[in-house]
């Protein structure tokens, strides 16, 4: 990250970002990623990771329970559909409010501790939510089956035509599936990016980086770190809640597994992969993970045999069976390996890699990092 981003530069980045998101169906076509379901996932998880990064990237507080907010957002949105009708906007608004409140509650308690204690507290709250959603909260969550919209639900604002129609959310008569669904989510991603960019450059964001840097000095500077961390925790929870709601617009179904701690781990991975504390990194990370998940998990033995058919027969068998471990059901293995490689080789994530390459291309020996890590004493 440059230390001196000017307003013009930020505006340019924003415009390019927005254009890139909106044209994804075109430029992602060559790699086979340009179909609405996947694009929609890119947008939703990009939003989720952007929100997570506001907390982790700026303040350094590593939440291991962010999936709880995603789940709460989903449940709220489905209830919004059930009660108010299939318009996604009120559902999303409700999800933001509920997850924000929920985040305020959890953050209020968890932020009393820092370091790994904070991580464990958030993990504990998320696991509690997950376990309860499966058991005693079944009247609200519909337990293992998952919560879905039924024809018999009240949906008070729905017109007669809608209430008889398919159970897909609709905005101004447009069904939120396919490309309209993607563009709806993309709009929120762009808005979310804009807000994140403003926060990064704002006094508030600077205070958050101060929290990460030196809380002691902050205290002796007349600043109270707690409301700052709580505020960003709530904002970050709202992003997650919105992402959770968006997951329900095409398929109005919410299940507890969305809250499981593996889902929390996934958003951490997306953020790390892309680059913690950078604006574009987490979105990039989310896209890459969702893309590979999609591609890899669709692979099966036949496809692999086709791919490796050029190999001599003696080699083909072992190669296919070894690579078979990493695809299809074994996609998580790839994910784990990826996780390790990134943390070991590129702790700054892809954005750092991009930065390194750019500075290499520019041929400049003037490295910013040396300034930062130069021994001071």
């Amino acid at each position: 990250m440059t230390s001196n981003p000017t307003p013009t530069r930020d505006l340019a980045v924003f415009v390019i970002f927005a254009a890139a998101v909106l044209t994804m169906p075109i430029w992602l076509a060559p790699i086979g990623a340009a179909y609405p379901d996947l694009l929609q996932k890119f947008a939703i998880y990009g939003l989720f990771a952007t929100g997570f990064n506001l907390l982790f990237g700026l303040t350094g507080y590593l939440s291991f329970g962010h999936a709880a907010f995603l789940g709460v957002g989903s449940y709220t949105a489905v209830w919004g559909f059930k009660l108010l009708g299939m318009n996604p906007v009120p559902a999303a608004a409700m999800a933001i409010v509920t997850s924000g409140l929920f985040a305020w509650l959890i953050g209020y308690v968890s932020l009393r501790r820092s370091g790994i204690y904070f991580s464990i507290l958030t993990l504990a709250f998320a696991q509690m939510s997950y376990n309860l959603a499966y058991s005693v909260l079944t009247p609200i969550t519909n337990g293992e089956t998952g919560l879905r919209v039924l024809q018999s639900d009240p949906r008070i604002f729905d017109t007669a035509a809608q209430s008889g129609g398919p159970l897909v959310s609709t905005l101004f008569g447009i069904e939120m599936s396919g490309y309209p669904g993607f563009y709806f989510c993309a709009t929120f991603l762009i808005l979310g990016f804009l807000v994140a960019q403003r926060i990064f450059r704002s006094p508030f964001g600077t205070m958050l980086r101060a929290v990460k840097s030196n809380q002691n000095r902050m205290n002796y500077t007349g600043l109270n770190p707690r409301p700052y961390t709580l505020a960003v925790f709530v904002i970050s929870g709202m992003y997650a809640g919105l992402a959770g709601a968006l997951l329900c617009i095409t398929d109005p179904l919410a299940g507890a597994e969305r809250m499981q701690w593996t889902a929390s781990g996934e958003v951490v991975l997306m953020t790390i992969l892309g680059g913690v504390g950078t604006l574009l990194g987490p979105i990039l990370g989310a896209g890459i993970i969702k893309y590979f998940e999609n591609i890899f998990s669709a692979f099966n033995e036949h496809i692999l045999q086709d791919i490796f058919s050029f190999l001599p027969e003696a080699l083909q068998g072992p190669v296919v069976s070894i690579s078979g471990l990493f695809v299809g059901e074994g996609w998580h293995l790839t994910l784990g390996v990826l996780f390790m490689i990134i943390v070991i080789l590129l702790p700054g994530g892809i954005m750092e890699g991009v930065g390194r390459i750019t500075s290499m291309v520019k041929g400049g020996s003037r490295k910013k990092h040396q300034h930062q890590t130069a021994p001071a004493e």
Partner: protein
Amino acid sequence: MDVILLQLLNGLDKGGAYALIALGLTLIFGTLGVVNFAHGALFMLGAFCAVTFNKFLSLEKVVLDPTKTTAWGTPMEVRTPYVEAYLGDFGAWVLNYSVPMSILLAIPVMLIIGFAMERGLIKHFYNRPHADQILVTFGLAIVLQEIIKSIYGANPIPQLAPSAVSGAADVGAFLGFDPGVIVYPFWRMVYLGFAGLVIAAVFAFLQFTTFGMVVRAGMADRETVGLLGINIERRFTIVFAIAAVVAGVAGVMYTPILPPDYHIGMDFLVLSFVVVVVGGMGSLPGAVAAGFLLGILQSFASMNEVKAILPGIDQIIIYLVAVVILLVRPRGLLGRKGVMES
């Protein structure tokens, strides 16, 4: 009273497993300063040592017995495990005792895995931020469990306790309560005794050997010990391997209680981390105490009487206790100040 005693007993064996995992986690954290999210995976690998050993022993020799026929008129197949076929009664005995016997397999295997993990991965993370350590070991845990899944499949694989201890004891009758109220499986008693033994062995090792003394000194003040010119790195490797063995044998012995599947490690890891934090990061007695405490509390919370008053409490009790303890005693039950705060 009898009900309470029963729950107490039920909580102890689970608590034993928590305590053993938490002990290793704390040992690693206290000496190496590394947060090992792959520790649950070590427990899981131990459990699958038992599965492998049993599978190996159960390899069967198929013989057609022409004197008997099946319902379809074909000759009856007689399946005999090789060990039984070649070793006779001794073979049968080994097969029967496959779970405890697999400790013999698990110890060298876990030593090698622990050694390889520390040398190959963990040692490069001593000076990295805790977040990086968490992330890389988390990645490793996923890799390990996916490998196991691809070999053994996703379903739990039940293991039998040796027949001599497969029944249950009427502990209640023995203690003078009504018979049939407090019935406690023998194997759980074995597990409890085993956990106690391992914990005692680890503590004795730390207390009475020179090596243990250095390790304890290292846990108290890592920097100073490093300055004393003691080859701390080699000891780190050994400590890590010991912790891996402890987790592994805990996994082996737990298989008859809970059929292992590939994610048993993750399930235990999350809880064990809560245990470690509740006990206090870096405190070995804290880890053990918290392990048993949370095991027992969990067992009490699953009583119907308790659930009637507080529905769902059994699902969240451990996390709830963790939250309360962390808020009331910020550094856990027996933790020291300033550990892992940054």
